[in-house]
């Protein structure tokens, strides 16, 4: 069997020339034109309505779909591996240009690596796909109507072309871990913000099911969420002067949109007009689960502006607050982070500590200091060597509320000065950079 596997490998290693795609598309386009000539009632491409395509030949550029393991190997449109349980790949990614319309669509597809989760995978992908296709189709119809209205009221074709109408469907990985995957799929058009849509898909990868707010926040989720949002909104009202409609608001229920952020907290997404005037846009509120300490990591933030052209704002997955340097971090966040570290040390939980650590990290063991490159290496350390009695004592005695920033970050220790743990801003968020004994 090995010999056959080797033979297959030789076969699979046959290199694919770049030219292949061009040749294939050439034939596709030629055939497309032939068909158009033959039968005039055909729609030209599954997404273009007849009236709208009353322009010169459409250039349809598909990139090869990548929902096959073979394409993975080629690294086409592959998005980072999400834990070991799921991958997101771009199922269909295409751009369509006509003289006056530009459509760009990236439809993500989740691939569950475990066979057990195939049912979930199918339903997730079906939903995502349906949403994307539908959105794109509706957006095209809207564009067409807009165009007609425009022309009927005296606009010229040239003026229309200047509009540079563009429709975009794209997605963002909001959070990924071994436990869960949170994906946001967005659609928007650049001539109106009224129809932008976003859908959120939160998957529990371990259990193979959707995550609900109840799963995260418990049975009293509606209340917990409501309270947190009201608190944050009141703060915002003071800070920004924006009016929030808190009395009339019906609160959170099982249909409320949310996504998980990288910190593992749900971020509730409220539609325009739901809790504030339309000008405030879509509102997001993170419900941080500090169990009563009342710390809110981020008050409600309005994400990307409403017009489609600032889609670039959403290009990076939002983590916690993005900090420029150690001096920009607010005290509450520092205290919260220090407390997380303290808990991890008190519990002698190597994994928890690893979660709080940025890699590579310097671990200055008494005999010999090491640079630990990756999380895996860190988890391979001897917990007893990491959580020495002195370390546990020092963290316990540390006064997290009186930590002050330095260039290196924030160093935690008790009155003896050592051992210590230092954390600071790395890539915009807090992470441990050094552990010293």
């Amino acid at each position, binding site marked *: *069997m090995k010999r056959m596997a080797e*033979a297959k490998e030789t076969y699979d290693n046959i290199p694919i020339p770049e030219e292949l795609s061009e040749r*294939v598309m050439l034939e*596709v386009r030629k*055939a497309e034109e032939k068909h158009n000539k033959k039968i005039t009632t055909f*729609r030209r491409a599954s997404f273009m309505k007849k009236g709208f395509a009353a322009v010169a030949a459409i250039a349809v550029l598909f990139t090869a779909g990548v929902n096959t393991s073979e394409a993975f190997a080629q690294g086409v449109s592959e998005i980072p591996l999400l834990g070991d349980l799921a991958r997101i790949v771009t199922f269909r990614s295409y751009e369509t240009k006509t003289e006056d319309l530009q459509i760009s669509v990236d439809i993500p597809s989740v691939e569950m690596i475990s066979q057990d989760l195939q049912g979930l995978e199918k339903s997730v992908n079906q939903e995502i796909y349906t949403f994307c296709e539908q959105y794109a189709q509706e957006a095209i119809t809207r564009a067409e109507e807009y165009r007609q209205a425009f022309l009927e009221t005296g606009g010229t074709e040239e003026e229309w072309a200047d509009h540079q109408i563009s429709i975009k469907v794209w997605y963002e990985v909001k959070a990924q871990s071994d436990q869960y995957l949170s994906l946001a799929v967005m659609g928007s058009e650049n001539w109106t913000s009224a129809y932008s849509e976003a859908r959120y898909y939160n998957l529990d990868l371990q259990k193979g099911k959707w995550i609900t707010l109840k799963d995260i926040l418990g049975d009293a989720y509606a209340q917990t969420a409501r309270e947190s949002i009201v608190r944050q909104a009141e703060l915002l009202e003071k800070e920004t002067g924006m009016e929030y409609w808190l009395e009339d608001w019906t609160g959170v229920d099982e249909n409320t949109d949310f996504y998980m952020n990288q910190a593992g907290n749900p971020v509730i997404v409220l539609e325009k007009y739901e809790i504030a005037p339309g000008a405030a846009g879509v509102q997001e509120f993170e419900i941080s689960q500090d169990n009563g300490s009342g710390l809110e990591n981020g008050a409600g933030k309005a994400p990307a502006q409403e017009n489609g052209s600032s889609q670039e704002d959403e290009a990076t997955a939002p983590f916690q607050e993005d900090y420029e340097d150690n001096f920009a971090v607010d005290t509450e966040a520092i205290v919260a982070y220090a407390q997380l570290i303290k808990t991890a040390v008190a519990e002698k939980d190597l994994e928890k500590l690893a979660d709080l650590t940025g890699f590579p990290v310097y671990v200055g063991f008494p005999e010999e200091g090491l640079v630990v490159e990756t999380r895996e290496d860190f988890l391979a350390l001897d917990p007893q060597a990491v959580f020495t009695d002195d370390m546990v004592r020092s963290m316990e005695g540390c006064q997290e509320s009186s930590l002050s920033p330095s260039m290196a970050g924030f160093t935690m220790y008790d009155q003896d000065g050592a051992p210590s743990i230092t954390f600071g801003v790395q890539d915009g968020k807090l992470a441990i950079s050094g552990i010293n004994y």
Partner: protein
Amino acid sequence: MKRELYDKLVSYIIENQNKFYRLAYSYVKNQDDALDVVQNAVCKALEHYEDLKNEDAMKTWVYKIVLNESYTLLKTKKRIILSEDNSYWEIPYEETGFEIHDDLYSRINQMESDLQNIIKLRYFEELTLGEIAQVLKMNINTVKTKLYRGLHALKISVEQEAGV
């Protein structure tokens, strides 16, 4: 409705073009010819898409076209020899590529057409026996028999392969 099928065919072709290329290449042994084969195959498939009855038949139908175009090119360039009764073809020894290795891959490429097609479709493209039967327009039992004959010729034990 026809349009939908057509679009699906286009998508299918675009998504699997690499596979078709490799299959073609394994017969014609060079990049330019392989590109030509795939291009011709795509052209034929789209031109004759009305022959395609339904979506289920799509995969085997396209593979059939790819194999046919590969064969056509080899015939055109006279790189194959037909058997006396025209029932199968073989690639003569000299034509099997610059370097002849005595590895399994090379030997597969030297087999007679039916056996070669079946082995490749089964192990390289991972088609089921039923699909292979459709592609090659053979009875499934014939496919099985030839498969085992092929493996035997390659001196691979059938028991080993049955576990594949």
